[in-house]
């Protein structure tokens, strides 16, 4: 079916992928989803390969998801978490990269609060680099798992109306999703406080509206973004209460979406802020599905990158 082949050494962002590459990642992930249903949830594919999980920012779910993905492919995984240590200094980051290189890993999964760190490591390291989130830039595997979740429930992405609500400006999840969903032919509508939606975001091919109601009208998919509470101090919103009032999703508001609309959230949620518990735990919520798809997507990413590197050193 798919003629596409994977040639990239790294997975740094959705914006640099072709449509065929996105489709290949999704198709591969769909095949890997089956592995989770086996009695033996492990295949020998990446036996003898080493994955370094390099997390400069706290994240349990993404890190664990990559760990499980690597283990299901029989790779060895080493966690190198430096959250909270003095890693804010770039010198150390560069030295860290060199140190890691000297251990000859096959893959480095990196998360960092600064944009472009995965790209920089990709230039420095022979290993395949997977971006697990860099600043407000990209979080490609999250967008892929969201797409997979949407496809599972809707059968397609093309032609769907996807509402994305919240802090668009500072969300790597939003950015990767916008790149992916628009590429696959969805109509993406974004909304949020004007302080958190860059006026120029329309350049990415999305429709910008200014109320939650407008955004979710007749939407097939509603994607709520996590509100980062520290933004309050930068004058971006006055209070959680007011944010919830204007941009929080509750059952009543959800009625404006299509009757079969699904609700996504990348987690972790601020219940009662951007999403009410009734919606988060309700019948339209596919939030836990998303988590499940994460492992398959990350297995697919590691598998395809392994091919691009021409196998073992």
């Amino acid at each position: 079916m798919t003629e596409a082949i994977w040639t990239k050494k790294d997975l740094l962002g959705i914006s640099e992928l072709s449509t065929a590459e996105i489709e290949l990642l999704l198709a591969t992930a769909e095949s890997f989803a089956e592995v989770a249903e086996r009695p033996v949830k492990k295949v020998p594919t990446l036996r003898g390969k080493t994955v370094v999980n390099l997390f400069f920012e706290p994240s349990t779910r993404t890190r664990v998801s990559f760990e499980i993905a690597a283990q299901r492919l029989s790779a060895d995984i080493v966690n190198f978490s430096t959250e909270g240590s003095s890693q804010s200094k770039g010198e150390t980051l560069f030295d860290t990269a060199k140190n890691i290189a000297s251990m000859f890993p096959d893959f480095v999964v990196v998360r960092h609060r600064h944009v472009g760190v995965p790209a920089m490591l990709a230039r420095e390291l022979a290993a395949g680099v997977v971006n697990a989130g860099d600043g407000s830039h990209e979080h490609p595997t999250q967008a892929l798992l969201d797409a997979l979740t949407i496809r599972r429930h809707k059968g397609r992405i093309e032609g769907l109306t996807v509402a994305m609500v919240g802090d668009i400006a500072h969300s790597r999840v939003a950015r990767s999703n916008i790149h992916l969903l628009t590429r696959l032919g969805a109509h993406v509508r974004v909304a949020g406080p004007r302080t958190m939606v860059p006026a120029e975001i329309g350049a990415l091919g999305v429709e910008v509206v200014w109320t939650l109601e407008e955004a979710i009208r007749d939407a097939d998919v509603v994607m709520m973004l996590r509100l980062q509470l520290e933004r309050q101090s930068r004058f971006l919103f006055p209070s959680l209460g007011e944010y919830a009032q204007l941009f929080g999703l509750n059952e009543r508001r959800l009625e404006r979406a299509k009757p079969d609309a699904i609700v996504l959230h990348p987690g972790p949620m601020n219940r009662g802020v951007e999403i009410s518990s009734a919606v988060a735990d309700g019948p339209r919520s596919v939030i836990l599905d998303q988590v499940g798809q994460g492992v398959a997507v990350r297995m697919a990413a590691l598998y395809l990158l392994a091919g691009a590197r021409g196998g073992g050193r």
Partner: protein
Amino acid sequence: MKLLVRGGRVVDPSQGLDQPADVLIEHGAVVRVEPSIAVPAHGEVLEARGLVVAPGLIDIHVHLREPGQESKETVASGVAAAVAGGFTAVACMANTSPVNDSRLVTETILRSAERAGLARVYPIGAVSKKLEGDEMASFGQLAAAGCVAFSDDGRPVFNTELMRRALEYSRHFDRPIVQHAQDLDLTGDGVMHEGTSSACCGMPGIPGLAEEVMIARDLLLAEETGGRYHVAHLSTARSLRLVREARARSLQVTCEVTPHHLLLADRAVIDAGFHAHWKMNPPLRDQRDVEGLVAGLADGSIDAIASDHAPHTADEKVLEFQTAPFGIVGLETTLALCLDRLVRPGRISLSRLIELLSTGPARVLGLPGGTLRPGALADVTLIDPERELEVVAARFRSKSRNTPFDGWKLRGAAVATIVGGRIVYRAD
């Protein structure tokens, strides 16, 4: 000591001159510029056939890093880079360590410049002590020691009261205040231009407003105080509009732009994979701003092109974009970039470029030079407009190699630089 520069095309915007002529230099001064001058007895001849003979280029915005950060640059390495790039004089900013807020530091810089004996060095003193923005530096002492202007460059003079007082007090010494115009609150943790590119990639942005708000404020202060005000590295079309309007009201306002803001736009940051060689402050703006600035060159509202030569070590510039320091080097690329990318495609004339690199900068800071009138300093730059050049950062005379232009192939470059009648640089 006599030197005859013979057979070149003399382009001197200060006299509206653009014609074949010889230039006779004696005792460090220009004696005559005439169509055909006989070789003087005991004189040296410099053949300039096919070359442009211009008043020495002046870069009014460089960071020489001495004292204090000699691993990035020294006065000696900086002036070596300057003369190789065709510059006969540079004005260096005060953000050294210690800050140039006292005559001691000014004298140190001038001593190093004298020892190096290449380009002239005009120190710019600090506006505030230690650049802290709290207390005014001793303008009188600094001016007496040789400072030609005052600036906290690297940082803005952010306190409105301080800027008001600096504009008032500097009038005693007839020196301009050079402002690094940047509202720090609006800047936040921004590192690239806030616009479509930053929206697309999620990099924290610095809005054009951060510069424009500050310039608008300063222009009101300049109007009120009558002080001389110069905008360093002006980077947006709207900033330029503000300056133009102020000029129309006859304010003593000048501005400079850098080659990188004229040639590169914010999209380049993404295309470069967020390499810190594309990180500078102000950041690369969007294409509309680039167009606006180039238009400003042509219509005369910009006074000078300055490099904002900001050397940083390789160790610092390999850091991730958000952590690495701002700034790029420019002394050895400015002229060639402008010749190839502005003059060659006809966006400005050669004579206008010389004005922007020589006569204009001299006027902004009230420096000698910028002209080949008889009696002027014999600072002359010889330019071969057809010389092919590939930018090779590894071969820079500067101690630092932080440039986004590495590998660019350009046509047009300085082939000889004369300071005070002495040939201080000749291309091989």
